[in-house]
């Protein structure tokens, strides 16, 4: 039930996914920062990490191959939900707070001069 095949497939896929991210970065520098663009690089890096997470969960941790009720899979889904609430929530709140921070003096003067001719 534990086969070497599963680990070998998982290892090969993981190595490929690990090397793809630096390869894209190298392509970005090679193409003088025009392709892939920065937003594309960020998105690709996240997609590659999530793919490798799935590969290792399936081939190394044998998730979803349980017999009977898949309690481990359910606990995993619950953990993923909480991770999104904690990490996503923190980023959302901090970004929002950043937007509400007091601007610097130059920005304030500019704003005031736009309002009523300045001081």
């Amino acid at each position, binding site marked *: 039930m*534990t086969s070497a095949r599963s680990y070998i497939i998982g*290892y090969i896929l993981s190595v490929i996914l690990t090397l793809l991210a630096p390869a894209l970065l190298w392509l970005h520098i090679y193409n003088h920062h025009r392709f892939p663009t920065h937003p594309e690089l960020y998105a690709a890096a996240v997609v590659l990490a999530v793919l490798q997470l799935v590969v290792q969960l399936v081939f190394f*941790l044998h998730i979803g191959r349980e017999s009977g009720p898949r309690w481990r899979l359910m606990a995993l889904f619950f953990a993923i939900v909480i991770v999104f609430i904690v*990490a996503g*929530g923190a980023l959302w709140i901090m970004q929002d707070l950043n937007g509400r921070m007091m601007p610097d003096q130059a920005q304030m003067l500019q704003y005031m001069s736009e309002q009523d001719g300045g001081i």
Partner: protein
Amino acid sequence: MMTTNAAHRTDSAPVFGFWLYLMSDCLLFAALFATYAVLRTNTFGGPDADALFNLPYALVETLILLTSSFVAGLGMVAASRGSKTGTLSAFIIALLLGLAFLGLEVHEFAGLIAAGAGPSRSAFLSSYFALVGTHGLHVALGSFWMILALVHTAKSGLHQDTMRRLTLVSMFWHFLDIIWIFIFTFVYIFGSI
């Protein structure tokens, strides 16, 4: 010869209990990742991720830990076939790779601190050392636990207790590699973009 044992089955109670611990450990790392994501641009006039991190170095660390996780998996395959020698040799290789990873990480930390980029330099570096350091601490504890499991197996052979122990250690090891993938992506790859 090895007898059929329930402990190795992926749906047994110890495995599920340990899985729940791993899921709660995920939440610890989620908090540390969130902290790092929020503070990663707060460099306080100090060096930022792009200036400090060496991507090829991090890539070598990643491949070493990945290989270690893979070899530990092969160790479990050998264990399920009842091969004590195979199990011990695979786990010893996994352990040595884990220690090599730790050595590289300690070297990296020492270099940063020597260059004046220690955890007290900026909020970015505090969150970096907290995140990567917590993972490193997990690897260090995992290595110690692996040594105990190896000594136990070497002394008493493969039976229900040692099988359970090896199963849980290898799960912990795979879990730490998964956490590292996200450190590699969010710290080192994002830092180089």
